[in-house]
């Protein structure tokens, strides 16, 4: 019996140019899912450290809650506003593709699964572009 040659995982992923719509949808769905999980943990960490009264502010102005101070501080940063736009993009795509997968599970639109993926991307792009004035308004 001859020895077999296993081409391995690296080569598999090196073939990304050959991926089709369904494959990209799967990759984006996994990626956005993990980003959302990461965001939720970050969100919990930020909120849990922002409870109570800001000791620095309370000494001067009195009773300014830490939550408001933290959030204002974050919102003043341009990078945070850009990250919020990114978060919206990730969430919207994940939701739209999730709905697409729900239809696929129900056996609906199987023959247009690639078109529905492109539609999800276009819709995500449109929503994100429309949100830019709100998120970045006054920051630039």
């Amino acid at each position, binding site marked *: 019996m*001859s*020895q*077999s*040659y*296993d*081409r391995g995982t690296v080569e*598999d992923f090196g*073939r990304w*140019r*050959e991926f*089709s*719509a*369904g*494959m990209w*949808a*799967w990759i984006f769905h996994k990626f956005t899912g993990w980003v959302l999980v990461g965001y939720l943990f970050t969100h919990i960490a930020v909120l849990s450290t922002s409870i109570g009264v800001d000791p620095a502010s309370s000494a001067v102005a009195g009773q300014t809650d830490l939550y408001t101070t933290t959030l204002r501080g974050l919102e003043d940063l341009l990078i945070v506003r850009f990250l919020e736009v990114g978060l919206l993009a990730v969430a919207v795509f994940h939701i739209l593709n999730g709905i697409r*997968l729900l239809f*696929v*599970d*129900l*056996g609906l639109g*199987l023959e247009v*699964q*690639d078109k529905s993926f492109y539609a999800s991307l276009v819709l995500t792009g449109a929503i994100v572009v429309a949100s830019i004035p709100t998120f970045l308004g006054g920051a630039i």
Partner: protein
Amino acid sequence: MSTLETTTETETEEVEQEREETPGDRRRELKRERAAERERRVEAELDDAENTRRLKVFRYDPEVEGKEEPRFDDFVVPYHKGMTILDALIYARDQYDSSLTFRHSCRQAVCGSDALFVNGRQRLGCKTQLGDLDDPIRIEPLPHQEVVKDLVVDMQHFYDQMHAVEPYFDPDDLPEGELAEQRQTPENREYVKMATRCIWCGACMSSCNIAAGDNEYLGPAAINKAYRFAMDEREGEDRKQERLRIIEQEHGVWRCQTQFSCTEVCPKDIPLTEHIQELKRESVKNNLKFW
């Protein structure tokens, strides 16, 4: 002295002549002549051909020294309208390198033995037209399966998964009489028709990267085979339950993540993802209890 010299020279010539005429020498000479003739014929054919196509063929032979490392060999083949990948490979093997190894049998997309990875996609060699592909045509063995030699992969795991779903028609009751027909309604036949077209080529399994990452996953072909029998009205309810039990296990239908890769590459156009999704729904319905 002169006579002696003449005798010696004659003997030497005879010995040399005898040596030249050994069967081994004759065979080698014949082989050289045939190789030269073949080369002339190939040159003439390449000159005459309207155009040529270049193949980049994956080569790997663990049993030959110096060929253990995978590489790509280039072959230029004359192109004729209607020529398939399999035709081109046969030409390359016959005219250039007789050690080029690939599987093929029926040459008409029925046996499923020549599934290959051509220009980044799983295709049947005998069904794929050379004219539809961009040059150079990159021909590789099926991904996610171990390569035995050149374009030949080890299909054992694929066959094991196919057999795991017990792909045999198994009705509860047989009709009266030995020659009586096992009737099926035309509607039911239509329902399972596409699923019956599977030729066990393994293209779908090779394209599924969930199957690549989970060795226990039954894979699209095996699930399709289970679908073919589970949806056949002639099999009894108990048998259907048994089949659903096999496909609804942890590494069964629920591993499918609807990438549609299998459906896209299936050379027989079987809607594999659709069948898997339908079996998922059957599985849910089968396990739903309202109490």
